[in-house]
């Protein structure tokens, strides 16, 4: 048994802190995962041009996890020995798809026609089980039979999808291309009146380079214009979000200490009108290839309106519910994407470059019936706001204008009722000469001005070198971990900027850092429950040397002498250099998951690793 220290009696409210190495080494957590994907199809041609195809696909998935928390690992404030506990969980899921399609294709001279009609059915079901046990006598036997089961449960959930699809591809001489398609999708996730959605689309292309008049332009080997317009749907929500669900709310009645009685009460509100989120998108693009493909260039413009967004929106809790899944609002995404690739050098020494650049503008066009903003809550209430005319999920709070130096400054500038010297002075956004909740404002958003990437590949004889640079420019990150790291209340470790804090009007520090304190005013730095302020918001722009790869292939004659097929030695390095002003670990990550109302928060996420790989690849 290894010996670890547990820090005890730290003061400031901490009775103990557990040793992180011990937590990592002694706590047991095993995950096993098994997945089987399979597709089978059968095809039958009725006529020369007419065929039927049946496709069956399955996805079987099994996942199990075991945990054991031994007696020797305590938690902060609860030093060991503790009562051991363990858990077991499993998920079994399947997802099958049956697709029937009929395909008709024909060539009539220079006309080529391809028609497809089909029907698909898909069903997925997932069954979960979990068991927890505690009161293990010791740490020896770690399976649940050794403990006392404290809870056990099994659950199931499923979804289904039916689709009717039709598609026509037509081209004339490979020059004029038209595709029209229509699909009708029915999803079990929506209310009974709104299960079905109809999504047509059409696209066309013109390969100008195939035209006779382009024959003489030798420099251009490919020139194509393309455009499309169409609708798509989105049903990425919970399986039962439209159903009013009830939850167990058990209680106790009876004499002599009481007996548990079953209670069942409302937990989510029904929405029979919940339906598909719709995207209406227009695209236009150009493809250009020069000098036999040594240089290619693509440019695309898109304009997408998403309506009836499937959002889980905070609702007045006087309804008895705090959130409700609704079709609400309209958002526009508009942008450009450019790509270029070039074979700079050919021959013994080759050099090629791929470059991409894109920009997107996101703007909310409409919200619920009243157009009122929707707030998002990530750890802090109203950390985000979604407002018409702004991007989805903008950061929301007070803008720091400075630090109050003196009592006179407090009195003579806009202030809250208990503002004091050394605390943040916020901007009086509402211009009413005082500070109030009305002075909260948008502090930034996660939408970058643009993103870009570049790959360069070099090779000389057996040597190969390539590197990938990625960059994002102009987005903001909510560094919410600063609630703790920049919480100068003396309860935990703090960032070194603490050294530059305000101490008095004569010793004002760096003019940006407030005083240390343990008071509970929201205007101090130290209140973990305070509103978001601009001190939580940082520029998230970065440039990263995402990967470098250096390889050497042994010359073929050497390899043959060794009776091998090939030998390659390589060195890969990932995330070697990141240039960014962001003070957190990694500007690329968000801890908020996929909720579009609360994007872009870094709440103590795990830092990204630099990975060095040295390898030898031998082929026999």
């Amino acid at each position, binding site marked *: 048994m290894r010996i670890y220290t547990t820090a005890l009696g730290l003061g400031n*409210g901490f*009775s103990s802190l557990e040793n992180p190495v011990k937590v990592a080494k002694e706590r047991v957590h095993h995950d096993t995962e098994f997945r089987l994907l399979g597709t*089978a*199809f*059968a095809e039958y041609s009725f006529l020369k041009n007419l065929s039927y195809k*049946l496709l*069956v696909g399955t996805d079987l998935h099994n996942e199990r996890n075991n945990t054991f928390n031994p007696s020797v690992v305590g938690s902060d404030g609860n030093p060991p020995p503790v009562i051991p506990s363990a858990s077991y969980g499993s998920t079994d899921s399947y997802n099958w798809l*049956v697709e029937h399609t009929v395909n008709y294709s024909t060539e009539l001279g220079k006309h080529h026609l391809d028609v497809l009609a089909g029907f698909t059915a898909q069903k997925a079901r997932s069954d979960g089980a979990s068991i927890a046990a505690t009161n293990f006598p010791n740490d020896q036997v770690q399976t649940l039979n050794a403990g006392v089961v404290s*809870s056990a449960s099994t*659950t199931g*959930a499923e979804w*289904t999808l*039916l689709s009717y699809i039709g598609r026509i591809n037509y081209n004339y001489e490979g020059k004029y291309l038209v595709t029209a398609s229509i699909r009708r999708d*029915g*999803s*079990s996730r929506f209310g*009974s009146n709104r299960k079905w959605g109809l999504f047509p689309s059409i696209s066309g292309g013109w390969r100008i380079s195939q035209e006779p008049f382009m024959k003489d332009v030798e420099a251009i080997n490919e020139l194509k214009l393309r455009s499309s317009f169409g609708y798509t749907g989105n049903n990425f929500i919970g399986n*039962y979000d439209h*159903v*009013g*669900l*009830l*939850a167990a709310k*058990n*209680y*106790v*009645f*009876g*004499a002599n*200490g*009481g*007996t*548990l009685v079953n*209670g*069942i*009460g*409302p937990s989510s*509100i*029904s*929405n029979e009108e919940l339906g598909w989120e719709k995207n209406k998108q227009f695209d236009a693009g150009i493809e250009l290839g020069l000098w036999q493909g040594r240089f290619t260039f693509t440019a695309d413009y898109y304009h997408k309106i998403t309506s009836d967004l499937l959002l889980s929106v*905070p*609702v*007045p*809790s*006087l*309804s*008895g*519910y705090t959130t*409700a899944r609704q079709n609400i609002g309209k958002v526009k995404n508009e942008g450009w994407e450019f790509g270029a690739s070039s074979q700079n050098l050919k021959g013994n020494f080759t050099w090629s470059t791929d470059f991409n650049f894109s920009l997107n503008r996101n703007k909310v066009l409409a919200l619920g019936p009243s157009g*009122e903003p929707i*707030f998002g*809550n990530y750890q802090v209430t109203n950390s985000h706001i979604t407002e018409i005319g702004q991007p989805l999920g903008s950061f929301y709070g007070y803008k720091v204008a400075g630090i109050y130096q003196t009592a006179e400054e407090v009195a003579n500038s806009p202030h809250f*009722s*208990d503002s004091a010297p050394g605390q943040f002075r916020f901007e009086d956004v509402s211009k009413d000469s005082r500070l109030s*909740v*009305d002075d909260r404002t948008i502090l930034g958003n996660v939408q970058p001005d643009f993103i870009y990437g570049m790959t360069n590949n070099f090779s000389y004889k057996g040597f190969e070198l390539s590197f990938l640079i990625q960059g994002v420019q102009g987005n903001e990150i909510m560094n919410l971990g600063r609630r703790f790291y920049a919480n100068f209340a003396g*309860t935990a470790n703090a960032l070194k900027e603490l050294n530059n804090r305000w101490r008095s009007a004569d010793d004002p520090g760096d003019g940006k850092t407030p005083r240390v304190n343990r008071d*509970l005013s929201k205007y101090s730095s130290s*209140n973990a*429950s305070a509103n978001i302020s601009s001190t939580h918001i940082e520029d998230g722009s970065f440039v990263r040397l995402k990967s470098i790869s250096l390889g050497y292939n042994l010359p073929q004659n050497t390899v043959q002498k060794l009776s091998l097929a090939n030998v390659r030695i390589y060195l890969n390095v990932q995330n070697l250099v990141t240039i960014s002003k962001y003070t957190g670990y990694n500007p690329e990550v968000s801890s908020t998951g996929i909720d579009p109302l609360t994007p872009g928060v870094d709440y103590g996420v795990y830092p990204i690793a630099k990975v060095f790989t040295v390898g030898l690849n031998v082929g026999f």
Partner: protein
Amino acid sequence: MKKYNFSIKYSFAIILLSVSCKSDFLDRAPISQTNSVNFYKTQADMLNAVNAAYASLQAEYNQSMYTIGEVTSDNTEILDAQSGIDNTQIDDFKTLTNNGILSSMWNYNYTGILACNTVIDRIQAISMDETLKTRYIAEVKFLRALQYFNMVRTFGDVPLVVKEIVDVQESYTYARTPVDEVYKQIIADLTEAENNLPPIYGDADVGRATSGAAKGILAKVYLTQGKWSDAASKAQEVISSAKYGLLDDYKNVFAINNKNNKESLFEVQYKKGGYGTGSPFNNAFAPRNSGSIVSTIGAGSGTNQPTADISAAYEPGDLRKDISMAEGYMNGSTFVASRYIKKFLDPNLFAGNDADNNWPVLRYADVLLMRAEALNEQGYSAGGETFDLLNQIRKRAGLTDIKPATVPDQAAFRLAIEQERRVELAFEDHRWFDLVRTNRAVEVLKAKGETIQPYRLLFPIPQTQIDINPSVITQNQGYNEN
């Protein structure tokens, strides 16, 4: 991915299979959760729905009620902000509009009110035992009234929702209803409850709302509104019912093997054992950093620790003091001076925050004191019933009777009641509401060095609720400047 060529025969079987299951293929009812479409059909369903309405009380009383009822007052305090920023704000009268305890209070109460309204709206269409139907409605109306009473005393005007909201858009139309109208509804609900609830239940249903509980809460509502004669007569109805009495030993009132005793009019029921229905007070009230010395299992949170002031408020010889609180605990051979509440300790709790203590919402002692107060407010009498009522309480506490000689007028009797209520009902969520209801909060707390702005007698409406619906929901005066 692998591809196999199926035989034609097999594929036709699958075609048939997939076509035959096509109808209703998209109708998927939740597998592991009850849903509102299939529920609320039978008497048994409605019983479950009524039970769920009671269950909301646990969430409401688990934290926000004692934080507002006790921590705000001079009875208890938070010693270290590490026990919780939200509690500490409330303790220090620095409550912000985004305070988490208040938003929980708001949300939990409206969740509970929804559970009540759902029963009331849905039970009408169900064919079931009519006597039970009447009782179920009366039970949830009692619960609805109790919740609105707690809400209105905390926030002032609150949106009055008396039907199940089935379309979420509808919830945007509710503004804050003036306090008087909310009280009208509370009184109407409690009046129906006192008429339709049984005075007692059989063994299996002990803990449900009784007519006595409805009368008792109604007396408190009247008292809060200053309707002295109504309050006095409701309290008298409880006394005359002869269903209740003071226990001989104050300690037994809170004993975990003596729940729902003769002195209890209404308790929030808890049961330990890993069911999710255990009470958290054992751990919540144990001092922070006391390890498990006070709490037995699990750590203490220190979210409700008695002040020096209440320690001094007990008269010498008051038997209740040692039952209600302690001055500190022994850590090995060292005494640690950190006061804690003893009324709700469970020496045999199942796990941390999973204890057996019920929460007393209304006790007979409270009813006696309410009657005495309501009578005194209608006119002082030197001796007689008011003195008898008060002295019953004092006698059990091992104290001498108060006499007209030392309590010579109405004002003096008021103070005698205030003092007696404070120590008799200490840590049972009454002190703050008593101080506010008698208009004494600012004065009493100021004398103890806590200057509070009068607007802080009401708590701020949770900012989230205003932000969701800003043109309809308004903030309490004073808090917008925060």
